[in-house]
């Protein structure tokens, strides 16, 4: 039985959090650091996430909670109480959270309310759009954390501008570590390439509401992919499929020789496709980061009007092409004709972010100064 008290406590809720925390868990294990792994997911995808944890060959969570909540306040409130219960039992040295969901905010808040120090992985991201709930969560978690692990210099500057009280460390993004660690697993477990009828292809993902809910934009996409200078592989999000049907574009797209539509794919299948494609065309944020990992290294065309990942663009991995058919086609053409000019290294780090995080944690004295040590608060009933 591993020691529980005074361990690092890792709390995850969603699949992206599991992916990005996986390298941290492995680094703690490698350095034989005591840790407690908590899975606190929403009831509707709890079982899938649990299965996902198995697939990534991560240790089983020490605590699991299925949170049934239909509103943000209820969700935050419930997780606060759950995490407090765990923290009282475990007496963590540091609570580690990743990302910007309501669950992350609730977990971090519960910890800090017990005077337990919080470490935020992927700190300092800002869209500067306060209508997005994630933007609130990010800001609040950054303002209550003691350790802020930022993926890039830009993120560090965001935090400095806000004068956060915690310490800022630029570690790189653990998503790069994750791609490196998960690619061999993915290649072993996925057989997606057997199903793809093209040898060379562009991989497309488009599911953001602002794109697929706009019929003009959706039409641009369908026409651009149909006329693309290279075959297109396009795993469809159920939402996108629904919109395509509503707009009567489904038939046209599914009958196009040049386009291979796929159902939504798992993480491993997607990693393998990213590795084997010629270029990635996407409106997702996370994919822009993953594409820069050494085991993928692919050019990305961002089909959006703006991106909160300026580093990928500056480094030359990504190009912001917008949503016009002509621009998408021209950019694809250019990318195909270009000699490979992608930088050797990722702007999101060299895949050692998790190791750095664990080193930093081990080197610091992770207890609040007396007389407010966590022991005071945690020992109270």
């Amino acid at each position, binding site marked *: 039985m591993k020691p529980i008290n005074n361990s690092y406590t890792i709390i995850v809720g969603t699949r992206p959090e599991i992916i990005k925390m996986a390298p941290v868990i492995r680094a703690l294990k490698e350095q034989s650091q005591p840790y407690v792994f908590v899975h606190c997911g929403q009831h509707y995808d709890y079982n899938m996430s649990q299965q996902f944890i198995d697939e990534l060959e991560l240790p089983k969570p020490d605590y699991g909670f299925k949170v049934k909540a239909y509103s943000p*306040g209820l969700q935050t409130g419930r997780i606060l109480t759950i995490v407090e219960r765990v923290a009282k039992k475990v007496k963590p040295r540091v609570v580690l959270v990743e990302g910007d969901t309501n669950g992350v905010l609730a977990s971090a808040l519960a910890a800090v309310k017990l005077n337990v120090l919080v470490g935020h992985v992927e700190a300092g991201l800002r869209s500067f759009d306060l209508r997005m709930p994630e933007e609130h969560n990010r800001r*609040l978690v950054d*303002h209550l954390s003691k350790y802020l692990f930022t993926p890039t210099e830009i993120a560090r500057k965001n935090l400095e501008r806000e004068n956060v009280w915690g310490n800022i460390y630029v570690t790189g993004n653990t998503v790069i570590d994750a791609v490196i660690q998960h690619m061999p697993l993915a290649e072993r477990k996925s057989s997606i390439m057997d199903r793809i009828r093209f040898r060379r292809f562009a991989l497309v993902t488009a599911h953001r509401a602002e794109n697929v809910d706009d019929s003009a934009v959706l039409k641009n996409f369908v026409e651009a992919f149909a006329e693309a200078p290279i075959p297109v592989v396009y795993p469809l999000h159920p939402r996108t499929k629904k919109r395509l049907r509503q707009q009567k574009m489904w038939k046209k797209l599914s009958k196009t020789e040049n386009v291979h539509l796929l159902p939504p794919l798992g993480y491993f299948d997607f990693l393998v496709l990213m590795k084997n494609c010629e270029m990635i065309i996407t409106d997702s944020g996370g994919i822009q980061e993953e594409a820069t990992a050494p085991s993928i290294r692919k050019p990305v065309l961002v089909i959006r009007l703006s991106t909160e990942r300026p580093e990928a663009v500056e480094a030359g991995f990504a190009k912001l092409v917008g949503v016009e058919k002509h621009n998408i086609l021209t950019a694809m053409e250019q990318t195909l004709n270009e000699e490979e000019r992608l930088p050797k290294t990722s702007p999101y780090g060299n895949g050692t972010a998790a190791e750095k995080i664990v080193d930093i944690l081990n080197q610091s004295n992770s207890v609040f100064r007396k007389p407010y040590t966590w022991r005071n608060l945690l020992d109270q009933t």
Partner: protein
Amino acid sequence: MKLMLIVGARPQIIKSAPIIHEAQKHREIELQLVHTGQHYDFEMSKIFFHELDLPDPLVNLGVGSGSHAWQTGNMMIKLEKTILENKPDVVMVPGDTNSTLAGALAAAKLHVPVAHVEAGARSYDMRMPEEINRRLTDHCSSLLFAPTKNCAKNLRQEGIRKQLIKLSGDTMYDALLQHMSTAEKSNILTEIGIKTDEYAVLTLHRPENVDTPKTFENIMKAMTMLKEVIIVFPVHPRTKQRLAAAKLMKQTQAANRIKLIEPVGYDEMLQLTQHARMVFTDSGGLQKEAFWLQTPCITLRDKTEWVETTELGANVLAGSKLQRIVEAAREIKETKGIKVKLERLRNPFGEGQAAQKILAQILKRG
């Protein structure tokens, strides 16, 4: 225009009183007063409502006391429901308690604009739960009413947009001015049997002071060493428990210069503070009240969010060290004409019109 005002603890009710009275003057404002029940004693809070002439709250959520996370979580759940049912246009949260944060979070997550009263106060001591509440509330608010220029500056330094910050003055000062005439009629001094200037007031409630027996003992020992003044100590029920737990009850009662009294009302407290030689406290609000009433203050904390008072020399941070407390008290006693000096200080907390300014802004944005 529906304005939901969320209160829970006693200082928040004082801060809100001028806003409530001002809102009652505007017919276009529908005030929805929500009491979270964070206050441990509902009866006490009721008396307080009466004293401040406040309307009954629309709802009392009765959350009660518990650990910080439990309390915040439960308040969020109940406040979210209340907000969904009453559909306010703005949710206003004063101060820095768990009720403040829970209200701000519940509203922000439902995309209801949050207005924070007393925004931007910072002690930069993250071990204080209030500091966390303040910071997080400020960062999910879309209207921030700063009581002083310094508070506004603190907010700017955290990257909060200038357009969202309004310098309003402090509603606690409004409340104090409105209550001075009734406070003067209080006969609390006669009841206790003390005269102006022969006593000092002591209040203590912070866990870091009362939950550690050693610290508590130090503070009480310092009090017994101050031979020339009587110590009037209104005891919070929680503090009383701790006093007993630290085995200090007997000792304290034996020292006949220390007068333990039941918690007092707002007017009585103002009267006591005004006529005291000095004030010893670990509360935030009393530091300001002592400042406005020109009574020297010794704060039994390492840091304060009201640096305005310490920078002007009206307030001294003594922490909980016996020697420092005794020295600070001696210095005050030896300073000649200290009251006159304090009277001459400028007041950075506004002119007593904060509530008016706040509601004018709310109506403008409404």
